[in-house]
């Protein structure tokens, strides 16, 4: 049946088909056709993003509420579904306040700048077999470069609002994002070296062709990428730049109304961007071992993307927050050496594979097994080397006694 459908306007496996049919019917000159086509595609991505954000605001609140013995929003609309809409309306209608002493231009620029890269990233994301707005051959590089714009935007917001919490949060964010961007890049570098391409579409088709996902080949890189992603989108346990119990609302403390709305939405969009790149690079993108012939590829892609994003919701509902120095120590002392080793290892494997010319059925499982085993050994060994035992051993219970006035202090911790 899919063969019958292929390329027809009712072939919804590629949402471009019906649109293509419509635009072709207009008979435009090619320049106008190109512009119109780009506009429609961009608008489609933007619409999907906004709807996804609205949906996930609701999903996150309901899911976290479930984790907390609560019901979550259930008053506006059926099952509270219209709550995000009501929130958005409220944010739109609120007075736009600029604090006294704030740098007005930069204060206004902050939310705008943070909003742009989070959307632009989706230009290179392949939603389906041919559903990609800009099929760049340096797609991975583009994603990293564009996401890097968030860092100055956050600092701009924190600096310009003339608020000390915001300033502290901005300083933390800069320190953190710069550290974790290195890890993010190294994680992606390993993947790129292995596949030999920076084109996201090529990366997906490689995983399709070799019938494997990169998660099975380099689990450590995926974990590192997701951790670095959590830092970038301020999700616990890395939500230090927002840290509502320490710094009120972090760098956007002074923002209200729709300016705050922009930050709020940008956080979700950045989350989707992280999830999208993780899906594309490590989870086979829009492919699902041949099922993409039957199920639309973009549905598979969205399913995977939402599943990855759900991990962040889950961690937010369950984990406490690390301290900034612990987080930096984790980045520089723990993750960075591991990621450098990982890159070297992957590079060596690629060379060995090419030299020996082993068949893919032998090479891929072998490489996957070696990588997984080494990842486990490295993580455990390196943690031991840095002096971290298992968590269970480090917690303890209180001593029980009946001798009033006796002192049980040992001071083991003070030294």
């Amino acid at each position: 049946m899919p063969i019958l459908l292929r390329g027809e306007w009712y072939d919804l496996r590629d949402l471009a088909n019906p649109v293509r049919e419509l635009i072709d019917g207009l008979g435009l000159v090619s320049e106008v056709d190109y512009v119109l086509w780009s506009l429609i595609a961009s608008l489609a991505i933007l619409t999907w993003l906004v709807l996804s954000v609205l949906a996930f605001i609701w999903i996150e609140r309901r899911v976290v509420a479930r984790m907390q013995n609560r019901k979550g929003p259930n008053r506006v609309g059926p099952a509270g579904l219209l709550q995000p809409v009501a929130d958005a309306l409220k944010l739109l209608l609120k007075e736009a306040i600029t604090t006294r002493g704030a740098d007005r231009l930069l204060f206004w620029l902050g939310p705008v700048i943070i909003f742009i890269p989070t959307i632009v990233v989706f230009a290179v994301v392949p939603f389906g077999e041919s559903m990609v707005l800009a099929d760049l051959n340096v797609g991975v590089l583009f994603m990293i470069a564009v996401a890097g714009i968030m860092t100055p935007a956050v600092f701009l917001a924190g600096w310009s609002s003339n608020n000390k919490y915001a300033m502290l949060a901005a300083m933390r964010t800069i320190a953190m994002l710069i550290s974790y961007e290195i890890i993010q890049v190294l994680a992606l570098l390993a993947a790129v070296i292995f596949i030999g391409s920076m084109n996201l579409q090529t990366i997906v088709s490689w995983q399709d062709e070799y019938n494997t996902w990169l998660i099975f080949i380099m689990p450590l890189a995926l974990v590192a990428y997701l951790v670095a992603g959590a830092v970038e989108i301020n999700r616990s346990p890395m939500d230090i730049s927002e840290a509502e119990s320490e710094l009120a609302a972090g760098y956007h403390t002074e923002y209200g109304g729709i300016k705050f709305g922009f930050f709020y939405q940008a956080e979700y969009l950045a989350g989707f961007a992280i999830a999208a790149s993780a899906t594309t690079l490590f989870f086979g993108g829009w492919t699902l071992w041949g099922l993409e012939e039957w199920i639309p590829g973009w549905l598979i892609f969205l399913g995977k993307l939402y599943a990855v994003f759900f991990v962040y919701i889950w961690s937010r509902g369950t984990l406490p927050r690390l301290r900034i120095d612990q987080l930096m120590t984790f980045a520089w002392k723990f993750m960075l050496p591991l990621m450098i080793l990982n890159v070297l290892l992957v590079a060596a494997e690629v060379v060995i594979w090419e030299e020996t010319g082993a068949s893919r059925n032998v090479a891929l499982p072998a490489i996957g097994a070696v990588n997984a085993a080494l990842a486990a050994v490295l993580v455990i060994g390196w943690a031991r080397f840095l002096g971290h035992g298992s968590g269970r051993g480090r917690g303890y219970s209180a001593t029980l006694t009946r001798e009033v006035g006796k002192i049980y202090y040992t001071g083991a911790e003070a030294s």
Partner: protein
Amino acid sequence: MTIKSEPFVVNVGPQHPSTHGVFRLRLTLDGEKIIDADMVMGYLHRSMEKLAEERTYTQNIPFTDRTDYVASMTGNLAYVMAVEKLMGIEVPERAQFLRTIMAELQRIASHSMALGIFANDCGAWQTPVMHMFRDREKILDLFEMACGARLTLNYMRIGGVSRDIPDEWIPQAQKLMEDLPKRFAEYEDLLLHNEIIVARARGVGVLTPEQAMAHSVSGPMLRGSGVAWDVRKADPYAAYDKIDFDIAVGTNGDVYDRFVVRLAEMRQSLHIIEQALEVMPGGPVHERLGTATVQPGGQSIAPLAFRPPVGEAYARIESPRGELGYYIVSDGGPSPFRFHIRAPSFINLTPLKLMAIGATVADAIVILGSVDFVVGEVDR
């Protein structure tokens, strides 16, 4: 090369998610490191000590609800004990047991909240609080059955308690006692051995026992520093001398130890309540005072006013936050001549500067959470 840096003053509070009320902490920072800390309080000062001089002894009981509004029962208990000490009143046995049970239920409720909020301060976004509020709600339901109120209870009376518990109260309390150990095991599993909580709390805000005693710190903070001092054991009041329980102490004096001491105390409280429910005798719940009116059922209720003899009394109990003392001076009139509250929340804040200097901002929040103060009691 040395980097030149300037100190940076941050006001944590009075409007801040982690000050547990309107309390202001003025931190001088060098980067993230605290080089000076100053407390500014009084935003919730209601001059209770002055107001109490204008009211009769019985009328003052509601004030004691509103000092530490998270643990009203213990506030009531300390005050009525001070007045009873002043007047030399013997309280009936059943009332003593009821007081013990209520005070321990209150301790579980208050520690639940303290631990949940502490986890919140560590950054666990609301989840532990919500789970612990579930237990607290159940306890507040029991309070509602016993005295009709949930927060400001006004249950204790001079000479006893305001009324006896209804018949269905004991089965419901026993059911709760069966449920709670499972929950506590869950909290111990999820929080006590949580790698991030351990990393955030161990070695932070250390107080040695000498420092703790010199700074008049009491309650879980003193016991966290390893001093086995619990007024319930050291100077038994109510029915604690008839009940078997242990004091929980820590060994390192850090934030983590205060946390484990509170968790262990919740289990001890359960143990106390279970025993008290078993051995609680029948009989009156109120000692008849001179001008007391007797209700149709034969139950006497506390008189609105009486004149204690000239003198003074200082009674202290172990409230969830520490040693809660009431110092009453009487000149023989119907209202106290001087009414002073030794508020554990307030005095436990004394070594805050000592603990905070050298720590980071994030540590200061965790230390503040581990003190477990209630601003209503700090400011009174």
